[in-house]
């Protein structure tokens, strides 16, 4: 099923390229194209957080921070670069299907799938500042991974840290 949709997306890109027109990729939250920035934090047309990648591959600040905070707080279970592990799903796949609200609710509230066959438990991160203060950045990073806009590993180049970010971080982390 996931393979199918990826294949469809590939065909779509190929078509759009050959036709010479821009064709947007759809993920779980819709069209990720960045339309508006508030102090370096990008939004799509629906107001969801999203990524902005320059022609030279330079990522916006939040995508970069998302990589760092994902690696610190989520990698232990969800594997390097959002690819999943032996006991937690690939978020690169999940974000193709779930929207921002569902993502936020799952991170904050947790999820359990415990049966005779498996013991999968996602903790509720709602009280964890190391996650919740960076939730949008983590979302943006994973959204970029799900859409194939960012590859594996540490993004090589990123925008400078916006002043508004420092202020918001200090207020949130306390």
């Amino acid at each position, binding site marked *: 099923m996931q393979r199918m949709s990826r294949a469809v997306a590939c065909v779509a890109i190929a078509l759009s390229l050959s036709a010479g027109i821009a064709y947007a990729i759809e993920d779980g939250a819709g069209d990720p194209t960045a339309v508006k920035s508030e102090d370096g934090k990008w939004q799509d047309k629906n107001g969801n957080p999203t990524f902005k990648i320059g022609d030279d591959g330079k990522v916006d600040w939040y995508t970069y921070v998302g990589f760092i905070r994902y690696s610190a707080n989520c990698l232990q279970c969800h594997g390097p670069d959002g690819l999943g592990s032996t006991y937690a799903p690939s978020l690169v796949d999940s974000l193709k299907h779930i929207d921002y609200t569902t993502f936020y609710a799952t991170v904050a509230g947790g999820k359990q799938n415990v049966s005779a066959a498996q013991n999968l*438990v996602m903790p509720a991160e709602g009280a964890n500042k*190391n996650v919740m203060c960076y939730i949008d950045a983590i979302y943006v990073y994973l959204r970029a991974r799900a859409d194939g806009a960012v590859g594996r590993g540490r993004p090589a180049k990123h925008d400078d840290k916006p002043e508004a970010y420092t202020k918001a971080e200090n207020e949130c982390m306390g």
Partner: protein
Amino acid sequence: MRRGSSGFWLAAAVMLSPVLLTTTAVAQTSANGDLTKMQSNASEWVMPTKSYDNQRYSTLDQITAQNVGKLQVAWTFSTGVLRGHEGSPLVIGNIMYVHAPFPNTVYALDLDHDGKILWKYEPKQDPNVIPVMCCDTVNRGPAYADGKIFLHQADTTLVALDAKTGKVDWSVKTDDPSKGATGTSAPMVVKDKVYVGVSGGEFGVRGWVAAYSTKDGKELWRAYSEGPDKDLLVDPQKTTSLGKPIGADSSLKSWQGDQWKIGGGDTWGWLAYDPKANLIYYGSGNPSTWNPSQRPGDNKWSMTIFARDPDTGMAKWVYQMTPHDEWDYDGVNEMILADQEIGGKTVPTLVHFDRNGFGYTLNRETGELLVAEKYDPAVNWATGINMDKGSKDYGRPILDKKYSTETPDVNHQGICPAALGTKDEQPAAYSPDTKLFYVPTNHVCMDYEPFRVSYTAGQPYVGATLSMYPPQGSQNMGNFIAWDATTGKIKWSDPEAFSVWSGALATKGGVVFYGTLEGYLKAVDAKTGKELYRFKTPSGIIGNVMTYEHNGQQYIAVLSGVGGWAGIGLAAGLTDPHAGLGAVGGYAALNNYTALGGTLTVFKLPSS
């Protein structure tokens, strides 16, 4: 709240201990005698590391360098659990005890009847403990004494089971999993006490080792790694570090403010015991968080070897290997006790292969440092250990500033070893025949990027991201080495594609065994390292090889079931490990070799 009450408890226990000692003196002697005696019986495997000295050496010699090539599978057993299987079975009499990761199942198998299941124990534990286990839901196995099986479960329940029936005799809670404390390590029994430590360095859990009565589970003492002297169970004048008294408030002075309360120093490794010196030995883990700039000071006594009186818990000596850790080089790896010739004299040594890449040889009675050398030439964070007794830095690592991670928000590159260490918990073996140590090692480097992190009880308190990859110019991510601990030199080294994450076994037959992450059980010549036999088990091996004898036949057994830290990268494919891509990237290619599943495989020679 919990800490307050255990502090009170500690004071009470110390006051009561002389009385306890007198009244239980008889029971102590007999219990201790039994287990010590049982260890010398080569046909059994009565504790996870074979014997109190942690040598993992068996005098069984039916399987030799000449005939091991004919080894074949005798029987197998599935644990029914998919996650990472560390540790090894025990064999007591005609019963084998096999454990599994969460839900921490234990099986008793009847060796007289083709491994028929005599009983199965499966505790009901709150699944919320699963996500607070940092690196998979592993457990390194139970201990045996006095007709009981002792198991430290994931949710920090220490349970005593009747070895014949599996019925719970007593159980006690040792810590609080809602704050990130978990049980993964194997207990050890000395005399009438069972000792256990705790995991949770990635959650800011303050480490401790505690002694419980084997009879009823009553806590008899508890010694923390960090905090005030009364919590540490140290005597500022009598407890020494490298021959000198540690002085008052040694831990408190090495932390900023109250940071020691969430300072880590967890105690999830193997314990050792020297009956002659009457001392138990173990190491403490990393200080929390992984961001070093957030916790100035030496962060004592994280990263420390402890020698304690098993009766009172009082520390005789301590030695901190990595003061103010900047790389997550936990000091918990096993302490191997062996009497060795050094400078023409027989010295009671303790040999320890630390995560930080140095192999240490100490006098285990005094804590004097004798040898400290790199056991992987790739190690670069320190150029050596200061061995000048006149120096104020005696015993401290000589740091290479290039590989310091003190500056936050910078990606510090090319540090060797990686946070996995040159070796993790997978225990080494020692053969008194060859006088060599056989060490399963990692050959992995890392980039380390520390950043600010805030503490919330029960939530990860990490503060760094890492990417791992093999050292430049290396194709292999592991080595299996033979080490001379009297000189600190590698005798031979067998390269392995992946980290060697399996405990070694040395035997009188001149054969050394270990497992690989692809799933091979391998036998090599103890003298040369030459491979003599390999067999591919159903899954990658992170368990420890053991041996026993039944009806006159020698068997070799190992748990396979990939997972643990190595399993985190398993599901993700990797494009190029040498490009230094994502963390744990080096292990990703494992996908092409093995898949999940816990199985015990037992080997023997064909009947002649």
